[in-house]
């Protein structure tokens, strides 16, 4: 019997095409040999990328964004993971207040977060620079980091840590050999998400940035002027870098999760033999 596509199946197909067609079109035209935006494209070329990387404004913005995203990922990853550890291992009223507060930035539109930061800097006479940009990004990504690491730590039975203690491991050794290996994949994943979100952030950055534009701000300033096809190449870079970061994190996570599972497997097997 021939498989007949269902109505919802057809709709799903259309929806996926709708989600991907625009970015795929941009990706294709980033490699277009001619300057005309018309299908079919006549030749493949890297000339728009060459033109782009020859533009000092692009290079500077690109470097700025990489720096800000890296610092954001490291600080948000460490700060969020430390707190997530406390949230899942300790009970106190203050801690639950902080945990609830850590979700605030998702519930406030980025526009308002940016506006509030700008107002506060005006009040305190702080001149916006890359530090304020990074602070804005850390705030934006920290809820995701906390949620991801907390979710991971909650899957770990605290009894395992107690068992390690009973077997004679000290507090630090337990953290190093049990807790950290379990947290690490989540920290890497959360860090990659923080990097990706920071690299693309614009709604807060508009308000917190000083004289050094990030890559999204460079794109917006280019879009306000006349557009030439090299913007397709910028869009390709913007699309590509976060996806690569997330892809690497995904592979690392899968490998280390696999290693933990295999490790657990050998323990089980050993128990069976004895």
């Amino acid at each position: 019997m021939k498989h007949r596509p269902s109505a919802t199946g057809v709709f799903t197909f259309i929806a996926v095409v709708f989600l991907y067609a625009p970015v795929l079109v941009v990706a294709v035209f980033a490699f277009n040999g001619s300057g005309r935006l018309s299908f079919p494209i006549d030749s493949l070329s890297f000339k728009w990328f060459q033109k782009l990387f020859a533009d000092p404004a692009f290079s500077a913005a690109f470097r700025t964004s990489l720096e800000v995203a890296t610092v954001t990922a490291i600080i948000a990853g460490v700060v969020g993971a430390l707190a997530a550890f406390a949230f899942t291992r300790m009970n106190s009223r203050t801690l639950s207040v902080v945990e609830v507060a850590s979700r605030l930035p998702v519930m406030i539109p980025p526009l308002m977060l940016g506006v509030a930061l700008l107002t506060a800097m005006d009040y305190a006479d702080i001149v916006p620079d890359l530090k304020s940009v990074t602070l804005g990004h850390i705030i934006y990504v920290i809820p995701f980091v906390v949620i991801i690491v907390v979710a991971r730590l909650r899957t770990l039975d605290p009894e395992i840590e107690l068992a390690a203690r009973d077997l004679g491991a000290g507090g630090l050794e337990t953290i190093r050999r049990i807790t950290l290996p379990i947290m690490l994949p989540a920290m890497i994943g959360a860090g990659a998400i923080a990097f990706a979100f920071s690299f693309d952030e614009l709604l807060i950055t508009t308000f917190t940035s000083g004289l050094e534009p990030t890559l999204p701000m460079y794109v917006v300033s280019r879009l306000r002027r006349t557009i030439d096809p090299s913007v397709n190449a910028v869009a390709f870079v913007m699309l590509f870098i976060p996806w690569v970061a997330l892809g690497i994190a995904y592979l690392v996570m899968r490998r280390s999760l696999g290693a933990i599972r295999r490790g657990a497997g050998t323990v089980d097997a050993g128990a069976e033999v004895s």
Partner: protein
Amino acid sequence: MKPSRRLAALLATPLAIVLLVGVVVPGMIFVVYSVFTFRLRQVHPGFTLDSFKAAITTAVYRTYAVNTLRIAIPVALITTVAGFALAHHIAFRAKRTKNLLLALVTISMLGSYLARVYAFRTLLGEHGVINETLISAGIINDPIGGLLFSRTAVVVAEVNLLLPLVTLLIYAGLMGIPRAMQDAGRDLGAGGFEVVRRVTLPMVGPAVLAALAFAFFLSVGDYVTPVLLGGKTSATIGIAISDQLRVTGNYALGSALSILTLLGFVLAYLLLRWSFRTAKLLPEVST
């Protein structure tokens, strides 16, 4: 292992400081600014409701508010309906393609926001892909104007931006429904659509409400898409707020407009929740 209370406090302190410095304190300063006076291009301490008065009585802000709603309401409705259909298909219909579809939706959500907005400019522009391709194919002679820089372009792009998130929110809700409930509905003689309406929807109501509210509020807060893709009728309240802060420097008015917008969110959410409750799409309140 039971870390001491002091250790726990030490671990959570950096996060608490970040939240205080980055959200709580700026938020308070921002609220206070809304009652300050704006004179000689500067904000001065004091107490006045002038900014709120200006925000409410100035006709142009009412136009902006209407524009905002005319973008955000269609965006929220379309993404929620489409997201529900998509999530429902992924959760219950797609068998072999389920993981692929979930991955595609997630990857799309994590794809660059700005690249996707820009993509619509490449597609819809006067010399964009659609026009140029149609012209070189000989279907049209002159570019179709008005594809870009219109409210429709903004709505289409924002649906594209928000659909993945909304789909995943509803999908998470759908996964919480015991499969047996739907089977029971079908056994009792309900058709496919009736099962969705009378069994699935009421159980996934909270997730749908959350998705709808999220889409609405992210659309209202997005002041970049309307600038890059919208025309004269797409000036939104977000653009007004951003201009007050970045161009005019009237922090007081910008902050009053923001507070009114946030109040609008709360009202809109309560209204939505009330209508969901009236339509019996939320579980009964147990308390």
